[in-house]
């Protein structure tokens, strides 16, 4: 376990270095004058002009060689200082904190809703494979996976905000704002979770050790909790990990539709404005999140299923 954590920590450092440098290089090689882009972000399309772009260039020292600017970023990072946004001049740590907070909030609610509904449906469907509930679940799962998320979002707004008037259509800041975007994400997730839970439960119940446990006289509930749930849990947990990642980085459409100020929103703006340190910081944050979630998945899997397993595929 310690070895695993140490390896993950090393990976985190490596990833931070590589990812932030890669972002820097990629952004700097994009077409378009950096100073003009930043000025457009600051002053808006009515006021951006050569004079404001030159002002930005002088203020930020964009004429200096790129390696100097990269070194500065390194130095800042070493001091855990992410610097300030080139466009808004606000502290990147603050801006990133807000965006990350909003994203995590949305992802957590969506995951909770998706898990709850999905696992319930899946477990119920697994009870009688091939039964009516099982078939219905499969149908619902396929249907929900085939609808693009923005269509789903629009439908939810039309039903719950416009027609019924019980939930706010879009926006951020009130507790109820999270309901519809989370639901839009959760519907697709629930389908996935239902399917995995169902398959895994059916499969685990069919394995010899569960059969054996039954024959040796353990009562049904014990078999369920000790064997079925534990073994199904391993698969489901790794799924939750993957989905959490996808949710955090990949919900730009939902963020856009519902006006949710998450990481996707921040990234799109930062790329559009060429806000280099903001892009670097966001990318690093997401990369570290990938490492953290993978670690969490590894640790919880190990806790649930302590059998040693092959880690490296090659000797």
């Amino acid at each position, binding site marked *: 376990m310690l070895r695993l954590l140490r390896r993950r920590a090393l990976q985190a450092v490596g990833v931070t270095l590589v990812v932030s440098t890669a972002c820097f290089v990629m952004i700097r090689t994009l077409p378009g004058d950096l100073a003009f882009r930043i000025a457009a972000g600051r*002053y808006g*399309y009515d006021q*951006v002009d050569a004079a404001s772009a030159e002002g930005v260039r002088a203020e930020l020292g964009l004429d200096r060689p790129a390696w100097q600017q990269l070194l500065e970023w390194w130095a800042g990072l070493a001091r855990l200082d992410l610097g300030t946004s080139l466009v808004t*001049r606000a502290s990147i740590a603050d801006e990133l904190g807000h965006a990350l907070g909003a994203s995590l909030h949305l992802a957590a609610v969506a995951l909770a809703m998706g898990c709850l509904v999905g696992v319930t449906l899946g477990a119920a469907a697994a009870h009688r494979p091939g039964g009516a509930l099982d078939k219905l679940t499969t149908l619902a799962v396929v249907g929900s996976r085939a609808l693009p998320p923005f269509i789903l979002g629009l439908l939810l707004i039309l039903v719950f*905000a416009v027609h019924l008037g019980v939930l706010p259509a*879009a*926006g951020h800041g009130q507790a109820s704002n999270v309901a519809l975007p989370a639901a839009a994400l959760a519907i697709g997730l629930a389908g996935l979770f239902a399917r995995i839970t169902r398959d895994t439960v059916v499969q685990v119940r069919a394995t010899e050790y569960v059969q054996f446990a039954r024959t040796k006289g353990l009562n049904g*509930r014990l078999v369920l909790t000790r064997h079925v749930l534990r073994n199904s849990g391993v698969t489901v947990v790794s799924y939750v990990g993957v989905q959490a990642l996808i949710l955090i980085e990949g919900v730009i459409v939902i963020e856009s539709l519902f*006006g949710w100020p998450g990481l996707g929103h921040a990234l799109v703006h930062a790329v559009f404005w060429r806000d280099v340190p903001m892009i670097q910081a966001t990318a690093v944050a997401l990369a570290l999140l990938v490492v953290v979630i993978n670690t969490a998945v590894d640790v919880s899997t190990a806790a649930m299923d302590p059998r040693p397993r092959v880690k490296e595929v090659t000797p």
Partner: protein
Amino acid sequence: MASTPTLRTARAIVALTAVVALTACTTTSDTRDGTAAVTGGTLSVVGPVEVHSLEPATSSELFTRLQVSETLVATDADGALRAGLATGWHADDDTTWRFELRPTAVFHDGEPVTADAVVAALQIAYDKEGSPLTGAPVAEIGVDGDDIVVRLDEPFASLPAVLAHTSTQVLAPSSYDEDGAVTEVIGSGPYAISAVHPPQRIEVTASEHWDGTAPAITDVTYQAVSRAESRALMAESGQSDVTLGMDPVSLQRLQDVDGVQIHSVTLPRTIQMKVNGEHPALGDPLVRQALSAALDRQGMATALLRDPEMAATQLFPPSLADWHQDDLTALEHDADEARRLLAEAGWEEGPDGILVRDGERFEITLRTFPDRPELPILATAIQAAFADVGIDLSVSISNSSEIPAGHQDGTLDVGLYARNYALVPDPAVTLLGDFAPEGSDWGAMGWNDEDLTAALEAMAEGLDDAQAADARAQVAQIMQDELPVIPVAWYRQSAVVNERVAGMTLDPLERSWWLSELTWSS
């Protein structure tokens, strides 16, 4: 049998789900009550502009629009200048202007608005980028007793208009840090900031220090939602009380929705194409006239802006009453005339239907940006219209800065954008910059006209009313003949207002939302 406990567990899970669902419903009804309570007390304003900065020049005018901060000079519903923080102003002589301060004005931190504080704020604005004040011939901003005195290097009749620009808003001395950066917006308007949550929310509440009529609606929340369709849904569902920046398509739908009213005002904004006058093909006035004639403005305005009246017949919209000339020959769609003009300029149809001259294909690129959603759609329509007369136009949708950048390095062929001719309430200031002889990022490119320059400069120095009217007519005529920029459409701004709220007026200059004049209907 083993199934019984499983079934029991399944039941337990279902029960748990039901509990959670119930909790969710309870929360929902709570928020519903909450929303109802909120609509009684807090006005919900939703608009497209995000909150990215507290600085006057880069805060997208949000703090003047929310009436948190004031400028020396304000404007009324007709776009005319009226008293702001200054109760009156006059020119002592050609190059000295005097502004008398409203003596009762108090900043939200309780400090009185003094001439010293105003001068300090103006000086900071003057020293920063992005303010038209920097472009004005200002020599010195000083204090004389209770008055603010601005000394100029040369006569400049539009100074009061410049001091109505949002970048010249007057903030309390405690708003700035030692470097002159704004750390907090402390203004003197009817509303004071209670919270700012970038990039999405600003909360304001009626200021106890406001020296005018107290606003009927005391609490206001501004929320930025960038998608127009989402804003429309917020308006339709009654979530927002005032919804700004509505798109033409959503407006069509909302017209039939009960409980909301649509308010509109024509803006002094023109959607236009900037044309590179040094381009071998586009430098020819005949070609520019042909481009103009190729455009079906009526069709575009009807189908895309859903508002046939917005088809531009000249550069200045009727809302700029002083500048719009009724007797100008209107720009009209005539594809045959366009083809004739192009032939006259030496262009002949090539093998693939695209015009050719001296072996060169008529290929140009139009740059535009998605910040205003109608621009890419109009660009697509323009592309088809040009193809119809044999011009191969490719459309590049990128960042707004690509137009000034292309102006600077000479790579721009055509740029499509919306120009606000009343950035400063006097269009002459914007025109003087945009059509300066050397060209300008958002105006002429490789084109100048001595008569136009002379007319604009004379206006800047100050003319009497009759002379000024003549000069404006002359400017409009030259623009119509020479087409250094080709007008495409005018612009109407719309807001959707819930019937809970009464008293909405839209500002044609978009300087203020005048929320302090709203009342609850019931």
